[in-house]
């Protein structure tokens, strides 16, 4: 039975699209059939992060409006044939996406894939509520920073109220993915620790993605870290998170980028 997962956060810029792409690749590499959907109508970016921006012909809204067939809009990844992308539309019409349209596409995708991962736009408006509407599980991406944690708390409340599962009296399984974590700064008391965030949000932890130069490098290249540099800290964090989604019991660690001795001694990040 396919699982529909929403990647959400409330706040923008915390790593929803990066995490959707990296987890999609990780799950596909672990043998799963995966589709990732961009729900950010008007501001699509998942195509760019996946390096598929020049292959977009039809989009999500073309499918819901009957302009194109689902199979025409789905972009199969060239590197991994078990992974597909459904790009968002660039239309400026905010109401182009309807609940019926989303339901019909998700219902079809459930039959074709093991995982349907919905990349939510920031905010709590239509696009964000539609992205979570039919979710079985939710990944809440949070930075260890006050505004991100506050917005995550708000999104958790909305997941418990506005999803189809919540309305039926069922539960959307929630997972917290902490990104841009800097253990050294947390140890110095300069950044909220994992325990702080977990205590405040009381949501089970899916993974800890360290702050890393590899993440920007990956989006520059259009190849998620889990493709491009599977040994890097963030990639290992995403692989562990993907395994946990598959039900494996994996010890929680904070993978770091392997550094040379020189790097360890002198490579402390400026800023």
């Amino acid at each position: 039975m396919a699982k529909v997962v929403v990647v959400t956060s409330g706040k923008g810029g915390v790593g929803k699209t990066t995490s959707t792409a990296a987890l999609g690749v990780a799950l596909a590499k672990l043998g799963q059939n995966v589709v990732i959907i961009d729900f950010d109508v008007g501001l699509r970016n998942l195509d760019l992060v996946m390096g598929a921006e020049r292959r977009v012909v039809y989009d999500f809204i073309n499918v819901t409006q009957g302009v194109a067939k689902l199979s025409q809009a789905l972009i199969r990844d060239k590197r991994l044939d078990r992974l597909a992308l459904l790009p968002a539309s660039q239309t400026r019409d905010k109401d182009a996406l309807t609940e019926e349209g989303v339901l019909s596409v998700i219902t079809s995708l459930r039959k074709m894939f093991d995982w349907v991962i919905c990349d939510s736009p920031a905010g709590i408006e239509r696009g964000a509520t539609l992205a979570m509407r039919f979710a079985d599980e939710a990944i809440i991406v949070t930075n260890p920073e006050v505004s991100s944690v506050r917005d995550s708390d708000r999104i958790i409340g909305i997941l418990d109220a506005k999803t189809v599962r919540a309305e039926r009296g069922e539960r959307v399984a929630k997972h917290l993915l902490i990104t841009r974590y800097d253990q050294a700064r947390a140890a110095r008391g300069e950044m909220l620790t994992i325990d702080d965030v977990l205590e405040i949000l009381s949501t089970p932890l899916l993974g800890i993605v360290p702050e890393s130069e590899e993440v920007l490098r990956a989006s520059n290249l259009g190849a998620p870290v889990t493709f491009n540099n599977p040994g890097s800290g963030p990639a290992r964090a995403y692989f562990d998170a993907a395994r946990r989604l598959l039900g494996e019991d994996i010890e929680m660690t904070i993978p770091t980028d392997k550094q040379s001795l020189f790097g360890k001694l002198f490579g402390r990040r400026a800023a």
Partner: protein
Amino acid sequence: MNLFNFFKRGGSAPVARDRLQILLAYERKGQGPSELLFILREEILAVVGRHVEINPERVTVQMDRGDKVSILEVEIEVPNTVRAQPGGGRKKRAALRPA
């Protein structure tokens, strides 16, 4: 940066944690009931509006939260020229005395 600031640095995370804990405790308390008030307001408006003409903007619904009991306060302004509206086939005059 003076020496004092140098020693003071590094302690900002506990401040962040405390601020968040206080803020979220407050915001969570507000979340449920405000939703409840919204639903109550809509339903009360619908019921009253079936019988008398009311201006939805002249309606206030609020909850005064106390330790042991809370008071739900509903204030609906009814114009002096109250007209009974036909309700479900039955003719029924709303016996409303404007205060």
